[in-house]
């Protein structure tokens, strides 16, 4: 076991990749195409979904019903990935996403998580003192708004559909998508103009 832990990661990866191929579990081509999809995923994809949902009530309904179908409708490949649930913020409710167990994150639509998402501090404080932690981001959740912390523990990935900020009346989809950041889509921040 010590030898495995101490193995140089590049060699370990090469050995596992070779074994997967020899056993017919996954081909080199499949690995390359999956890696390309993973590297291509970025918060801009989720932002396009949010912007469209702000403009198109039918799309918004689809997104809240089946996030993966809504992502596919925007050309984001979801095959073989966990279901995507979408949590809608409104005047009464603010959602915050955390994974206290590990690092579940809606990577297909947001890309790699920010470095702090996996930190013990974020994972602990998001469930223990969420309003205090959000305050340090400058995200003030008014007392009149209920906070729902969604601890992503199992087979779903969760993203937040934030409230469309005032001052964006008449904006088109590209303009709206440009103001939506990754933090807005897990509820640590809210979009603003």
């Amino acid at each position, binding site marked *: 076991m010590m030898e495995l832990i101490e193995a140089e990661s590049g060699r370990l990866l090469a050995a596992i990749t070779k074994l997967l191929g020899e056993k017919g579990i996954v081909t080199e081509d499949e690995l390359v195409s999956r890696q390309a999809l993973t590297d291509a995923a970025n918060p801009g994809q989720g932002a396009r979904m949010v912007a469209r949902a702000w403009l198109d009530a039918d799309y918004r309904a689809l997104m809240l019903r089946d996030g993966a179908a809504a992502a596919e409708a925007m050309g984001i490949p979801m095959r073989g990935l966990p279901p995507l649930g979408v949590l809608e913020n409104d005047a009464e409710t603010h959602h915050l996403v955390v994974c206290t167990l590990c690092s579940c994150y809606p990577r297909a639509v947001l890309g790699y998580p920010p470095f702090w998402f996996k930190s013990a501090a974020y994972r602990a404080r998001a469930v223990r003192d969420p*309003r205090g932690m959000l305050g340090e981001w400058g995200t003030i959740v008014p*007392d009149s708004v209920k*906070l*729902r912390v*969604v*601890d992503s*523990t*199992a087979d*779903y990935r969760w993203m937040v559909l934030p409230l469309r900020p005032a001052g964006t009346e008449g904006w088109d989809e590209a303009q709206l998508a440009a103001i939506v950041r990754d933090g807005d889509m897990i509820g640590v921040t809210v979009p603003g103009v």
Partner: protein
Amino acid sequence: MLQPGTPVQVKLDWPETRGPCHIRTPHYLRGRMGVVERHLGDFPNPEDLAFARPAARLPLYHVRFDQPALWGEGYAGDAIVVELYESWLEAR
């Protein structure tokens, strides 16, 4: 199948004290009372999948917990919502 609105208690169980295991039920919820929000679907039990054992499909629920009650502090009305498998829940 547990219906939305059903009060449930998370089992007060610590399999990690009995040997190697893989658990998706956060420790801070063991033994706590919550309410089923909705059934999210059925998924192969990750506690078996992690060890390459045959895995039965289990109902998975979104369960809501009163956040201040978990910690003895916080804002009334705030909630924590967590995915939990039926095998960890007892209707109360």
